[in-house]
């Protein structure tokens, strides 16, 4: 695998998928493409991570899926965010921001010491 791919922190992928679905319903490949394009190819989501994540989200009732024909005339499963998924996303985003802030504090203080 490419070494310049970013490794996911646990739980981050779920948040990214939820965030992607806020913009509208999508199939699995569409989600992967969206994340890839939005991050300027920095994050490539593997099928091995994406589809299990979608299964997990579906089991938890955060997304729903339906078989539909896509814009390119291909029958596939289309995922939608549920209200519970929306709520979960908000919670995770705010947790993520807290985390980033805290990490930034540490990194910055270290920089000062150096």
């Amino acid at each position, binding site marked *: 695998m490419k070494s310049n791919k970013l490794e996911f922190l646990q739980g981050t992928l779920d948040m990214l998928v939820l965030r992607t679905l806020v913009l509208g319903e999508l199939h699995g*490949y*569409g989600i992967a*493409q969206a994340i890839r394009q939005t991050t300027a190819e920095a994050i490539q989501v*593997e*099928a091995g991570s994406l*589809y299990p994540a979608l299964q997990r989200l579906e*089991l938890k009732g955060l997304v729903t899926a339906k078989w539909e024909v896509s814009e390119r005339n*291909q029958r596939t499963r289309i995922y939608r965010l549920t209200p519970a998924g929306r709520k979960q996303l908000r919670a995770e985003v705010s947790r993520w921001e807290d985390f980033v802030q805290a990490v930034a504090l540490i990194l910055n203080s270290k920089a000062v010491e150096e």
Partner: protein
Amino acid sequence: MYWLRRLLLWLPANRRARERELNEELSANFSLALADADDERAARRDFGSITRAREEARAVWFPGWDSLSQDVRFAFRTLRRSPGFTVVALLSLGLGSGAATALFSLVDTIILKPLAYREPGRLLFVRAVIPPLVHIYPTMPVNYQHFRFWQEQSQAFESISGFRGDTATLYSGGEPEVIGRISTSPNLFTTLGIQPQIGRTFDPDEDQPGKPAAVVITDGLWRRRFGGAPDILGHTVRLDGTQYSVIGVLSPSFRFPRKGDLGALASLPDRPELFVPIKDALQGWGGDNDYSVFARLKPNVSSAEGTAELDLLERRIAREHQLNSGVHVQTRMLQEVMGTSVRTALAVLLAAVLVLLLIVCVNLANLLLARANARAREYSLRIAIGASRGRLLISALVETFLLAGAGGLLGLVAAQAALGVFVQRAPVELPRLDEVQLDWRIAAFALGVSLLCGLLFGVLPALRLSAVDPQDAIRSGSHTITGGRRGIRLREWLVGAEVSLTTVLLVLAGLLVSSLWHVLHVERGFNADQSIEVRVSLPPRYSEAADRDRFFEHATEKLKSLPGVRSVAAASKVPLTGEAGVNPVGIDGGNLGALDPATRELIMINVRFVGPEYFQSLGIPLLRGRTIGESDRQRSVVVISGRLAAKLWLGQNPIGRSLTTGSRVHRSEVIGVVGDVHTTTLDRDPTLIVYAPYWKFSYQVSGFVVRISPGAAATAGDIRRTLQSLDPEIPAPRIRTMGEIVDESLVRRRFQMDVVVVFAGAALLLAALGIYGVVAYGIALRRRELGIRIALGARADQVTRLVMWQGLRPVACGLACGIAVALAAGRLVRTLLFGVSATDAWTLGAITVILASISLLACLLPSRAALRIEPAGVLRQD
């Protein structure tokens, strides 16, 4: 909702649908990716591994599955790595659950399982209560006329059946054989609600005179004597002197009460195999309480209502026939009755098993705890590198479950084996013993017991373990973690508990052993060594009293001429084979019914019919007067037992006085007094006996007593040939030495004792293991301290004393507690004891000594390890 969705995934159909859907989704999305990409390789690379996606999705659906199988594999490995622990744990689990399972299946069969009759809840067993006799027989069988009256008049019962048993000689289908026979009212099988496997049962009028004689046989008899031939129906078979036509064969599962199942005086054979209608019942309305009665209640009639109705009918009978003995009835569920005789014995067994099971649990806890402490370091390491406590708990539980499951299987095997031995060795009178077998409920019980033990006592150490603080454990040496001190204290408690339970079992075993010893040394009143009982059943052509007399006279002469035979006497019954000919007795021409001078109760005696040399043949001493002689044929004479003489004539000379009693003895002159003998069992008081000459009532005579010289040549074969040379139609006689009869009378007591002794032995072994474990672990825990002590010059005996105290302290406490419990619980087992009190100081002392020496040994063995500690090595460690 989440959990429901999760659970639904475990349904195979759901799971497959889900997998199919995912596959479709993956391939659909891949084709989208393919359309975007330059070539297939690039598409594959960008899309990622589809296989991994499938695997990971499965992990989402079934979380924990992988880790569980990992835990199982890991548990297997660790168990295999410590075979000592595994074997001991498995053995004790197997022992405990095996014993519990074996007993459970016994209790289940004998007491819990419904009788194989239709709606056994409506079947009552009816006995008569005759107030003047209540002090001897609280209940008795029923008079035939009373039973018929109930049959005609009762409204509360669907059907009422009466029967009595005896034996008869079957001449058809091979050698003549003596077979248990039940003479019954024709409706017996209707009352029980069972159908024959072939043919029919009796018609309602089958007992009427003029009807052809019909017999219904059991499956066992059919197969044994007639090879299971299907054309048996309509066959005539010869039973004693009568030809019977076989009308039906009962099913293999049919069981009928046997001797001892239906209480005192119920005449039942050891193995009832033939059923015939009652033809010649006794016509009297008073006495002759010979019939056992089963009655089936109508639906929606309570047993109290049924009983009340029978009592009402009894009052009518008393009025109409001028009987004033106040007879009434006692009814019980047949189901309950069948197990009554062995309830106490089973209760003792149950208690013993429970105690053993407790000890097993304690021992297991002890073992697991020791192991947990030994593995504390491993666990803290696992915690330190990120294993969650829950995960550790689960992996500890998986291990326990594996152990317990295997232990349960082992227990099932052990139970199977134990039951085999048990059924073979148990006293025959255990009811329904032939029905005992293992089935799935029993198997579930074995596994359940084992798992419960495992869970209860596996959780404890697992909880302690997962609470280990990894920093503590890793920083300090593995033997000095904080859990250690607490651990040893807990284990001391456990050992104390184990020892006290063992003490209780040992005391019980000791008391039973001592009781058996006392019973064996009871003054029997006869000499068992060279006496033989020979039981014959005479063919029907001896129906005339004169013919019987002649036969017995003749046979006595013939037997006496055998080499080595010293004396021979015809006899109705020998000692220790039960009561018979029970009658009240009157003296000196008075009316029937002399009263016991001490209790003012009616004196009841047994009548025995014996030949002149009876007392000599059994070694019963003559105390006064003379024994019966041939010259007494024209007179009415009796010999009485010593206690009876004392009760009737209060120390006066009874010789020449007269007494009156039933069983055709009428008024007779007392010509001699002989020693008392035990009639029922050695642990009951000797029976009061009136001996009458056998020619008075030769129908009662069932055989001979033969006394042979020591080392005599005469054998059972000689005796049989001699008798059959007189008449080849005589079936092979049953020949037993009096010694064998004594053994048989003790079989139940001996068996009970054996079982408890085995349990106590097992408990002792487990307790010793526990003590050993504590001491060994204590030493391991204190290696460093002991090493320093030795380095500073502690002597070997000082070190030994130090470590032994650790083991002996809980032993001493446990012993004291156990003795206290045994003293308090002594009352419960009083009925099982004989000649020894439940608080017998000798027994308690002996048990203390045994337990103390075993414990000492269990402490001493590991304590040598303490002496082997090398101070230098220990101090350099860590």
